[in-house]
């Protein structure tokens, strides 16, 4: 009797222990009303996976369209071909490599992590057009106003390498070769960024905008409308993304407008100097002071300089050691040049154009009944910081963990957040239930 009981109980235990594996069922992924069979990604550097100041193979592998294609594959998406660069260093489009973090002493002797160009040669941009067309069609540098131009494919080396005949293919014609059933379209960023990253020295609304100019919203809207019309009239569905404000990215926010921190003694000395050069109206005080910037409209005093004002943006391209040790932005004779500063007029132009582009993009989305990814609103949340499974990510340069070393483009973890926002928008519009990606599996900043 005793033995029997023990045997019976033991067998229950053994069977029970082996069968005690929890078995949760997730939701059933569905494509909803959309067809993800043939997905094409149209856009600029953000769509190509550009990061750390260059396009590289690993950047392409960690691009948001690559992530989307993997999630689309769960709900019937097909092959997603990518015009891969050779692995290794990236290429910035003019033969420069990507940036990496390294330890370097600054001019004050403090050793810190600094982005430097990766050693070695840049990836070859040799043509791979013969193997096209490609589903991944992000073209670094492309503006909305370039999208319809056949000539543009002979100008942009990233586009030239993926088309069959540079000079006669356009971004639009390449996209249509894919016969997409679904597209993501994110163009227009460079129509404002080119102007903004160059310090606003370009022209505003010129008839024939060059890179560095601020594109006319009517031209941007016109090109995007043709793109969406061409794609949707052939039966494709998709998502169009709008343009984040420049102040969402660390390139424009890392150096504060009032980054000159002085002791009372140093301020007194500067006040004397500024009196001597005829600018007694520029007052320095102990604590944080605005940088001195060039401004040709200044009429008083002997120099065309003034203090930066709140809301004006000092660009990350400003040489850090020159600020720290060479009196840039402090000495009356070393005011920060126009190329390093977006003054309040330029900021206003940029904001107004961004808003106009976004109104147009929103209108296109509703008139063609496609999904709108409001990346402007979404990327603003980076500024305050987002939390993903216990990881704090924000828009601070390097320490924020979401942007790459160029301060404009996200790193893989940041691109994963963008991919998830796209999926959220697609699911909402097309009644699909596509799982999002696990952001933590993608790299953030990689330290040396």
């Amino acid at each position: 009797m005793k033995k029997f009981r023990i045997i019976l109980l033991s067998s229950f235990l053994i069977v029970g222990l082996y069968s005690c594996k929890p078995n949760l069922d997730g939701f059933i992924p569905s494509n909803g009303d959309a067809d993800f069979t043939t997905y094409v990604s149209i856009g600029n550097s953000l769509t190509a996976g550009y990061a750390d100041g260059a396009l590289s193979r690993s950047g392409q592998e960690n691009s948001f369209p690559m992530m989307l294609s993997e999630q689309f594959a769960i709900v019937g998406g097909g092959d997603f071909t990518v015009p891969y660069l050779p692995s290794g260093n990236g290429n910035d489009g003019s033969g420069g490599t990507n940036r990496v973090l390294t330890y370097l002493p600054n001019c004050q002797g403090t050793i810190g992590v600094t982005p430097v160009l990766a050693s070695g040669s840049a990836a070859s941009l040799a043509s791979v057009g013969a193997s096209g067309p490609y589903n991944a069609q992000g073209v670094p540098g492309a503006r909305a106003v370039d999208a319809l131009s056949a000539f543009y494919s002979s100008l942009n080396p990233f586009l030239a390498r993926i088309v069959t005949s540079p000079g006669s293919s356009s971004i639009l014609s390449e996209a249509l070769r894919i016969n997409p059933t679904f597209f993501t379209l994110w163009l227009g960023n460079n129509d404002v960024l080119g102007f903004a990253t160059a310090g606003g020295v370009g022209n505003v609304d010129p008839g024939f905008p060059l890179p560095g100019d601020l594109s006319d919203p009517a031209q941007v809207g016109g090109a995007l409308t043709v793109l969406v019309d061409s794609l949707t009239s052939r039966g494709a569905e998709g998502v169009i993304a709008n343009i984040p404000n420049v102040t969402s990215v660390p390139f424009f926010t890392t150096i504060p407008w009032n980054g000159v921190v002085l002791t009372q003694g140093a301020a007194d000395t500067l006040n004397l100097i500024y009196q001597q050069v005829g600018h007694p109206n520029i007052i320095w005080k102990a604590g944080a002071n605005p940088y001195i910037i060039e401004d040709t409209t200044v009429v008083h005093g002997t120099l065309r300089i003034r203090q930066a004002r709140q809301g004006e943006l000092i660009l990350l391209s400003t040489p850090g050691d020159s600020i720290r040790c060479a009196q840039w932005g402090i000495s009356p004779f070393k005011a920060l040049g126009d190329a390093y500063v977006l003054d309040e007029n330029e900021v206003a132009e940029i904001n107004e154009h961004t808003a106009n582009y976004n109104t147009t993009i929103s209108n296109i989305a509703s008139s063609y009944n496609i999904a709108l990814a409001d990346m402007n609103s979404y990327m603003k949340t980076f500024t305050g910081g987002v939390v993903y499974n216990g990881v704090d990510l924000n828009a601070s340069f390097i320490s924020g963990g979401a942007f790459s070393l160029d301060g404009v483009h996200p790193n893989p973890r940041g691109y994963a957040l963008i991919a998830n926002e796209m999926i959220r928008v697609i699911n909402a519009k097309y009644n699909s239930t596509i799982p999002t990606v696990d952001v933590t599996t993608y790299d953030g900043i990689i330290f040396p």
Partner: protein
Amino acid sequence: MSLALCMMHQVVLAGGFKIGLQGQRQIGMGHTGIGLAQDAATIYFNPAGMSFVDNQISVGVSGIIPRVQFLDANTNLITNAENQFFTPFSLYANYHLKNTPLNVGLGVYTPFGSGVKYPTDWSGRFVLTSINLTNVFLQPSISWKLNDNLSVGGGFVYSLGHVDLNRQIPLSSNGGQVEASGNLEGAASGLGYNLGVYFKTGKVFSGGLTYHSRVDMKVDNGNAVFNNIPAAAASSFPNTTFTTELPLPGEVGLGTAFRINEDLTLALDLNYTFWNSFKSLGFDYADNTDRLTDEASPRNYENAWAARGGLQWDASNRTTIRAGLFYDQTPVQDAFVNPELPDNNKIGAAFGFSYWLEDRLSLDVSLLYEDVAKRQTLNTETQLHGTYRTKVMIPGVGVNYLFGKKIKKRTNRMN
């Protein structure tokens, strides 16, 4: 049958991180025992019951193999925690001081604890990769028999504990191949007490009322050790010490037992645990930096009920068979569920038996399984969003040795 055995369960075995495995006979009856003193384990359940229990030693151990699973609501991906094995134990001795109304006793038992270990590459690794909370109560006790129907008792609790927590830190180096991590480890101690009243009328009814005090477990000199921190951030994560405090909540309990007939006894218990003392889990580091700041992660536990019932049947003069059920309310609110303790309300079912190997020695066996609703959560602090489910089986075994008194009937009865 295997499916029936395979109910869901949580990492630990009562609401929160309380462990409901304090006596093999009591486990078999749904962990009742406040109003039914049947062996020396009454030192935990109701120290006043010692007056109505013969001189004896009760020891027991349970084996827990929790199997935890997490389904991420965003990515639809499943994480299985690694299998672990835990052995909460108990040891009780009860002794009547001759020619006095007093009994003295000692309990050594493990009323709280938790443990779970996730893969170090899981999506929630920056919240937690593993936690191990262990705890032992040492409880010297005394009870005073006021008359044949009533006793009071109490015990002084000295609690020892240990916490070991690991998590990854989102800092990568070596081309992204190496990720930083942190370990927090320390010993804790605390003081408390356990009080009870026990009464019985004739041979058909008994009852008890207990109060377990809160025990604040303090870690005064824990070690915080950080690994694989990139050199650029090394000064932000110095190896340092920390202090923390974890309140083990107080509880009131009410229990009764009825002898339905010669061989059949019913026990009913209610527990109310003051979990609201656990507001947050904080770590106060001796060295603070820009990245290493003192933490206070909200927990906001709520007070919780448990209701328990058990039957025991003296099947022969060598065998007693037991069965029990309980409902245990979780103290954890949806927005504060953490991977350290994916708790939920649960229904438990238990079986057990005692077999008298000889007049003074019984073998006590229990088997507990609990059905825990799967827990969906969106943690407001970490944004970890998904469903937890855990299954565990808890077999237990113990022995009880009576000494001193000549034994007339071996199986249990209302003393």
